[in-house]
């Protein structure tokens, strides 16, 4: 039996007396006495959010929603709560979606959370209703060009650890074949920097003619867009397009699937149109010329990044790289490729861990690590910079330290090419 839930107000004033916490405990009304349709109307009137009103309650989304697997959330439920007059603008539901696109994959009515979420969140941000930690990420991005709040001037500092020259376009003063758009976590996060250094060494070994924007680069901004800050996204995009337009190159290679998504679908709308590939796609084509000098005798599984896989249909390139690594046994998790589950970092989730915690029984990254362990993987390979820190954290918090390692594909590849001696594969 499902019981009515108790609700507590932070402060309730009864006859002029402030009652807080359990003293004002009440029970949620059991009987639905009104369908306040103005709320559904308000939400579906937001441009982009129309399709929320299309839901016919089949429940297919609930079954594949990773967030529902750790909480009480799915697009179907959102529609019903909204139909009952609970405003999505005020509900924690609004911030739980990681825009992983698994619901849209199965939705018969094309209720499109990928459009709904940024649209409604934008409204909530305007009304000052977004969680504080998300706003901090926005503010950092606006101020420093990265959500972490690191110095904009230090964006290229990681290159010092690469051990190979990493040309910065403003100094190189010559056209390049590949403009490598590095992105924030690969430029600043300690583990991201290690993967960037590995990728730089691979590029050097393969003789790739490349350059980076260095301090002229700012966050691509796609996750900020999905999290409701379209204005910020546009500001960043305008900046990056302006910087990229200064230089001559044949294509952009990105480390981050979120940036890939932005360059593929959003930047062209703002006048920035270049051929773009994810680094796994770029390297997959160069595999024939790669000289592997050692192997990894491990079972490796691959976590599909939502924005590379479901959003943009690339499942094969990262796998072809992993399969090429000597001695590796590639195993697939139950949720893989189209049905892969999210790491929890997308759509702003990267900056909402504190908020999400209160509405989830565990983190999505923990679920995923458990799944990787369940399928016998000793290495969880990733190709999205959000994931190394998220999964490494989850490995520790789920007590699997020493049992499974989290590695970027670039790190593994560099290792087998003899370019990553420091990598400890245990």
């Amino acid at each position: 039996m499902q019981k009515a839930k108790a609700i507590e107000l932070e402060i309730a004033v009864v006859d002029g007396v402030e009652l807080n916490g359990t003293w004002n405990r009440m029970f949620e009304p059991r009987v639905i006495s009104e369908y306040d349709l103005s709320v559904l109307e308000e939400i579906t009137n937001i441009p982009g959010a129309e399709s929320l009103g299309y839901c016919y309650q089949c429940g297919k989304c609930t079954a594949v929603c990773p967030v529902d697997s750790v909480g009480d959330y799915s697009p179907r439920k959102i529609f019903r709560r909204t139909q009952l007059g609970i405003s999505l603008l005020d509900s924690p539901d609004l911030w739980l979606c990681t825009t992983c696109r698994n619901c849209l994959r199965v939705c018969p009515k094309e209720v499109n959370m990928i459009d709904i979420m940024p649209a409604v969140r934008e409204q909530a941000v305007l009304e000052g209703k977004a969680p504080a930690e998300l706003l901090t990420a926005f503010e950092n991005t606006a101020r420093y060009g990265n959500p972490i709040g690191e110095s904009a001037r230090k964006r290229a500092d990681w290159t010092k650890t690469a051990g190979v020259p990493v040309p910065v376009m403003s100094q190189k003063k010559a056209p390049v074949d590949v403009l490598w758009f590095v992105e924030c976590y690969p430029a600043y996060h300690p583990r991201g920097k290690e993967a960037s250094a590995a990728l730089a060494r691979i590029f050097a070994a393969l003789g790739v003619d490349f350059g980076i924007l260095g301090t002229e680069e700012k966050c691509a901004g796609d996750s900020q867009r999905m999290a409701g800050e379209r204005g910020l996204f546009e500001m960043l995009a305008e900046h990056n397009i302006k910087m990229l337009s200064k230089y001559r190159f044949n294509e952009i290679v990105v480390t981050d699937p979120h940036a890939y998504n932005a360059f593929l679908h959003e930047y062209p709308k703002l006048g920035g149109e270049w051929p773009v590939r994810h680094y796994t796609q770029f390297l997959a084509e160069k595999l024939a010329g790669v000289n592997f000098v050692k192997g990894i005798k491990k079972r490796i599984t691959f976590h599909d990044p939502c924005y590379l896989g479901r959003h943009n249909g690339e499942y094969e390139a990262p796998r072809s790289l992993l399969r090429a690594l000597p001695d590796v046994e590639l195993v697939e998790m139950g949720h893989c490729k189209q049905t892969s589950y999210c790491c929890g970092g997308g759509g702003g989730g990267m900056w909402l861990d504190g908020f999400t915690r209160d509405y989830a029984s565990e983190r999505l990254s923990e679920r995923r690590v458990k799944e990787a362990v369940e399928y016998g993987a000793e290495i969880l390979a990733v190709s999205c910079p959000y994931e190394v820190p998220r999964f490494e954290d989850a490995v520790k918090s789920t007590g699997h330290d020493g049992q499974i390692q989290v590695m970027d594909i670039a790190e593994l590849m560099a290792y087998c090419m003899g370019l990553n001696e420091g990598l400890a594969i245990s």
Partner: protein
Amino acid sequence: MGPILIVTESTASGITDSTKECVGKAKELAKVLGTSTVALGFGPGAVDRLRRLDVNKVIAAEDGEFAVYNPAVCENALVQVVAETAPFLTMIPNTTMGLDLGAGLAGRNNIPLIAYCSDLQEQDGKITAVSQVFAGKLLARVPVPGDGAIVTVLPGSWPTGEETGDPVVETISGDYSSRMRVIRVIEPEKGDVDITKADILVSVGRGIESPDNLPLADELAEAMGGVVSCSRPVVDAGWLPKARQVGKSGQTVKPKLYLACGISGAPEHLQGMRDADLIIAVNTDEEASIMEAAHFGTTVDMLDLMPALAERLRGG
């Protein structure tokens, strides 16, 4: 040269340490500069509290308006005392009172102000004030002008002076009234823990291993006069409430001491505590990234160190 004026501050337990530090320093400077020291005290019982201060003169304002600290009333009195005594230096602890009175006096009497002062150094009869600027990232060495200045002094800048003096005591009274009125003073609620307000944090991470070990941290914190905080895994495990969490998704803290026990120092954690004045890290892994942020580090087992440290601090 005018005297050195110390604006004293007291709490329920008497004159504050910070005041005593100013008194000690003032005496030292007065001696080399060949001037005297004057202490100004507010509130009922000021005469009794200041009677033993090691200064040449005490001025006490005890009357009704001074019953509780009122920034505007005290400022009015201070303005008058400064006009009458023409001090070379006016030293005020850099507390709420110092922030109230120092700048107000500076503006009203057109005297330069050096705030967040952590030292006053004398050389050849010239005084240089050291002021913490840019949140302590830089120190400004400020030559005190010949006409003198107001300095508000950070607590903990010097050793406390002794209370062995026999000053001349003067009381003042007059109309210091203001449009400002203190309605009441509220004591802090007991039992509430706000880790952002604590000066000393004993912060525990995954290295605490089990909730059964938390009393070790509690006892150490109590012995140090601090509070227990933690990193995210401890909150995630449900061992401590969310309010105790330091880091990106928890609180940002700037204590005087951050004793990090068994915390590896993920960037998300460092973000919440890297501005602490003093960081001591206890972690069996010498390579842990917390060691990059810490001033001091040790690789002994935190579970052994915590009781050993607590015992010494209680004993002392």
